[in-house]
Structure formats: structure tokens, C-alpha cells
């Protein structure tokens, strides 16, 4: 049914349609309206046979989900930003134990400096935790990915993180098709665990594993994610046949036919990039987009095929590994380095801490990549004047003070407004 609805509430409705049996949440910033919406659905009785557990922290939220999942329940939680960091140990435990929990990550930056806005730093901090990570381009896809995520997670017995851009998607109200219960029930069978804590047939889960077996356990986790490379497109195909729209999969191509310049990105930025590409195509520039949906597992073969014909590849991402550069660009570099005629790779970091990514800036960036490429990592719309002054000041003065405060002071002077309190 078509609804004009906030992204978070649409996701809450979609998750409810998946019939979760345990939902754990720590309802404090950083959190989205998703768990709030689910709480309302449980309370009003429209989500039945579901235990909603308010816990005392994010660490507890995921720990309770782990316990519930091990006891055979379909378990769900959501977090963002610092909340994900606080549950980090449990994040690794969920995947290490092979428990098919689904978690929404309403992507936000990580402090310091304190910042509540959108970027992908939180997802990147857990990229090697063993969870599958799927990125939604639109709120419609966010809805659809949650339904697919439970299916993928339970088929593999591995946890799945659905990454949805905080604010940009979670707080946007738009037209979204919410599937009906019968269709979701037909797509997603009841959870049939591969391991379950059952007093009638006792087992233990979570053994101490020494050097004699640790490698094998890890290899099998990797093997499962490699299987996911086949399962994700298969389940997305089944979803498309049943629900009549394309959502999910490993990656998607947009106007890539005959493209000399290919852009690669993840999440909601792809919409703005598509509009930019349409404008550039009108000017006769052969440019296209590859949207990565599945970041973990990383679709190396599919990417290599998608990028093989291009002269230039621009990777634009909302995260930076300080001291190295863009994580996505690094992964893509590894995927294409053995191509016989590998495209030139240009890495750009954009939208950090919620900075708007505009068509105007993207136009400039894409044209620059083909004509006058930069070296290393490019920070889109970096205020070079402010950065230059701060570097200069630090050189002159040993006790130069805290960076964030210095930058804010400079900006305040430039605009003539009082510095932030």
C-alpha cells in the first residue's frame, strides 16, 4: 500500500511485517524513530507474539538480541554512531556465533568532535566484524532490504546490518510502498534455527576455541559470506518477482553503457549522483553510476565486471580512514587491480558529519576526475582557507589549542556571528 510516510516509520512497519519475536532497544540519542515506531506497534497490539525489551545500554541491546536469537527467536535491534561502538564487542560475538540478528544502522558520524549528523563512519568501524552490510539507496529500498535481510540472515545463520543514511533517509517523509502481510509471509518463512538453546535438548553455544580450531571457525564464517554473494542476488530476484520492484542485490548499474567515467557510491547519495549524471549526459559526457548495495560481502567479481570498460572510476564515500583514505576506494582498488587494463581510480570523501553533497560540487568533481585528476584522497568542498590557517597557526604556536574550537572560532570571525556556545 502506498503511503506518504517518514522513512523510520516505514522501516518500523516493514520490520513488524517480518514478525520479529524479540526487539531490544536503548531509546536514547543516537537512535532513530524505528524502535519507537515498533514500540508503538507492540503496545497497540498490532505486532503480536513479540517481546519488546527496553534495555540499559546498546551493549545490552545487542547482548539480549544474541541471547534471544540463540534461544530460537527472530531478533531485531537498531542503533547508530556511538551506540554501535558501545556494542562493538557484542557485534563481533553475534557474527562469531553465527546468529541471524537483523540490525538497522541509521548511519551517523562518530565523535569526537561531537556530531549527530549523517555519514558512514559508524558502518565502516564495523566493516570487518563479520556482519553482512547492506546499504539502502532510498527509503523504499530500506523497507525492502529489511525483509530480504531476515531471509538472508536466517538462510546463512549470520547477522545482517541494514545501513540507512541517518536523517537524509530516516527523517525524510516520502511515498513508500509498504507490502502487505500475506506477501511478506510468502517471502519470509518462519525462523528455523540451525542452532538453538533448548532445555529439552541441551547444547552449549560459545565454546572456548584454541589455535587448533579458530582458523577453521573463521574460514567457515568467510565461506558463508562468499555464499552470500550468490544468495543476495538470488533473494533479490525472488523479491523482484514477488513484489514487482528491484531492491537489493549486490550492486546496480545506472547509465553505465558506453560510459568512460564510472562513479561508485553507496547509500542515499546515489540519488543526487543520478540527477547529476543525467545532466552531464545531456552535455554529452559519457558517465554512469555503480551503486554498491552489498558492502559485506564485497562483490569483487561483480564490481570487476561492472568497472572493466571504464577509463576513469571515481569512488565517492562518506567516510575516511584517517591515515589511509577512503575505505570503499581501497576495497575497490583491490577488486580492480588485476584487470589487464584497469581504470584509473580517483578517491573522494564527501558528506562527512552531515555536510550537504550538492549537484554543483559533484559536477565539478566528476569533470575534474576525467580532465585533471587529483592525487590521493580528495575532500569534497574542503574549506582550504580555514585548514591552511589552522596548519599555519599550529606551526607557529606549540600550545595552539583544540582543533575543533579553533576552526569554529575562525568560521565565526568570517561570518561576523558570535562563536557557538
Amino acid at each position, binding site marked *: 500500500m502506498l503511503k*506518504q510516510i517518514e522513512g523510520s516509520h516505514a522501516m518500523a512497519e516493514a520490520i513488524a511485517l517480518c514478525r520479529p519475536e524479540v526487539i531490544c532497544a536503548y531509546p536514547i540519542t543516537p537512535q532513530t524513530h524505528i524502535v519507537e515506531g515498533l514500540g508503538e506497534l507492540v503496545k497497540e497490539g498490532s505486532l503480536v507474539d513479540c517481546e519488546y525489551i527496553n534495555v540499559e545500554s546498546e551493549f545490552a541491546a545487542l547482548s539480549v538480541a544474541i541471547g534471544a536469537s540463540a534461544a530460537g527467536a527472530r531478533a531485531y535491534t537498531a542503533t547508530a554512531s556511538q551506540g554501535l561502538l558501545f556494542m562493538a564487542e557484542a557485534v563481533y560475538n553475534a557474527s562469531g556465533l553465527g546468529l541471524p540478528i537483523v540490525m538497522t544502522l541509521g548511519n551517523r558520524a562518530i565523535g569526537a568532535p561531537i556530531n549527530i*549528523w549523517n555519514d558512514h563512519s559508524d558502518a565502516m568501524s564495523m566493516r570487518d566484524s563479520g556482519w553482512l552490510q547492506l546499504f539502502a539507496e532510498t527509503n523504499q529500498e530500506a523497507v525492502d532490504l529489511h525483509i530480504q535481510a531476515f531471509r538472508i540472515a536466517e538462510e546463512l545463520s549470520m547477522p545482517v546490518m541494514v545501513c540507512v543514511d541517518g536523517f537524509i533517509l530516516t527523517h*525524510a*517523509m516520502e511515498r513508500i510502498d509498504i507490502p502487505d502481510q500475506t506477501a511478506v509471509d510468502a517471502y519470509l518463512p518462519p525462523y528455523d534455527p540451525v542452532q538453538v538453546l533448548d532445555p529439552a535438548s541441551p547444547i552449549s553455544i560459545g565454546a572456548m576455541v584454541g589455535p587448533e580450531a579458530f582458523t577453521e571457525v573463521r574460514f567457515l564464517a568467510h565461506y558463508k559470506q562468499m555464499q552470500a554473494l550468490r544468495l543476495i542476488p538470488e533473494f533479490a530476484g525472488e523479491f523482484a518477482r514477488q513484489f514487482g520492484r528491484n531492491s537489493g542485490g549486490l550492486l546496480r548499474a545506472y547509465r553505465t553503457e558506453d560510459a568512460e567515467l564510472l562513479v561508485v557510491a553507496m547509500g542515499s547519495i546515489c540519488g*543526487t549522483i543520478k540527477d547529476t549524471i543525467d545532466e552531464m549526459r545531456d552535455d554529452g559526457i559519457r558517465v554512469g553510476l555503480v551503486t554498491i548495495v552489498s558492502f559485506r560481502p564485497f562483490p569483487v567479481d561483480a564490481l570487476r565486471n561492472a568497472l572493466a570498460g571504464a577509463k576513469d572510476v571515481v569512488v565517492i564515500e562518506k567516510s575516511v580512514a584517517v591515515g589511509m583514505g577512503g575505505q570503499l576506494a581501497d576495497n575497490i582498488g583491490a577488486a580492480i587491480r588485476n584487470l589487464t587494463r584497469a581504470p584509473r581510480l580517483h578517491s573522494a570523501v564527501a558528506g562527512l558529519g552531515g555536510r*550537504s553533497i*550538492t549537484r554543483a560540487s559533484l559536477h565539478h568533481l566528476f569533470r575534474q576526475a576525467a580532465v585533471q585528476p587529483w592525487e590521493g584522497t580528495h575532500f569534497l568542498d574542503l574549506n582550504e582557507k580555514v585548514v591552511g590557517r589552522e596548519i599555519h597557526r599550529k606551526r607557529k604556536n606549540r600550545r595552539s589549542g583544540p582543533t575543533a574550537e579553533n576552526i569554529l572560532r575562525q568560521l565565526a570571525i568570517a561570518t561576523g556571528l558570535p562563536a557557538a556556545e
Partner: protein
Amino acid sequence: MFQVRIHGRGGQGVVTGAEMLSVTAFFEGRHAQAFPSFGSERTGAPVVAFCRIADREIRLREPIIEPDCLIVQDATLFKVIDVFAGLSSDGYLLVNTNKSLDELHIRNAVDRLPKGHAVIVPATEIALKRVGRPVPNAALLGAFAALTQFVHIDSVKRAIEAAFPGQVGTANVAAAGDAYEFVLSQQSAATAA
């Protein structure tokens, strides 16, 4: 695509206003995207919300930089921020105030717009009368329908009822109706003059 930027202060229902406008467009079978300017919202702090309306899927996720219509819920904002930034030369301006456009000292900006594209409406006053609270957002949407003729007043009323069920909705619908009539009468007076 038609782009609306709503300026107000925290507590005035700026975000709800943008959301109700998007629901209005949805009821008319169009695509619409409403979103807030993300930040820590404090009561009284300047707040911005956006609404895009189009006949096809809206993919763009940048903030609205070049609005086709500005809705200003609080006229004191003209002194604080550049409300007019990016307003297109054939755009619309709707200001919630008891004063005239001249009294607000925004004549220069208004004169750059086509004749009849800038109006005031005492939306807070209307809301106080109809709703009993200084929440001008619903009334302003009624005025928006009259000013731009871009959405139908009946769709606006339906969207308000969807957002506020019961008596609050009825009161806000009445406020939207008053503001709609106010702008229409102002326009016909201007044409007659």
C-alpha cells in the same frame, strides 16, 4: 519539480508543515519529499524544513538551494538570516505577519518577484482564534494553496486532518480555510486596485 523552503523557529511546527505539504501532494497523486534541516532543534532557534513536489520519483537529496516558494513562519527571521537565499526570480513568498511587506523592510526582495507573488497572512492570529495556540503551520498551507494554486485547498485540509485527528484537526482545517480566503481576498483587492 516545485521546491518549497519553510523558515521558522523551533516549536512553530516547521517540520510538520513541510510534512503536511508533502502529504497534500501525495493525495493529489504526486511524488513529494519532506525533510528537516537536520540539527539540534531548540525552541526558538531558527529552523528550516523543505518540501519537493514532482510528477516523477524524486531522487535528489541535497537541501533546497533554489526554492520556488518561501514560507516564512516568523518575520523576525529576516533580520537574522538570509531567508531569500536562492529564491528563484519567478518564485513565491508567503510571510506570516500582521504587518505589511513594507513595514517588514523587505520591499527590495519582493520587487524582484512577479507581481502578486508575495503576500502576507496573519497565520498566528488565525491559529490563535481557531486553534487556541500560536501554531501557524496549517493556516500557512491554506495560504500556500491560495497563493500558488499549486495544490488544491481540499487536499490541504485532508492532509491536516490526517496529521491531526479529531478536534485539533478540525480547528486547524478551519484556520487553513481562513488563511486561504484571506489570501484570495487580498489578491482580488490588488487586482481591483
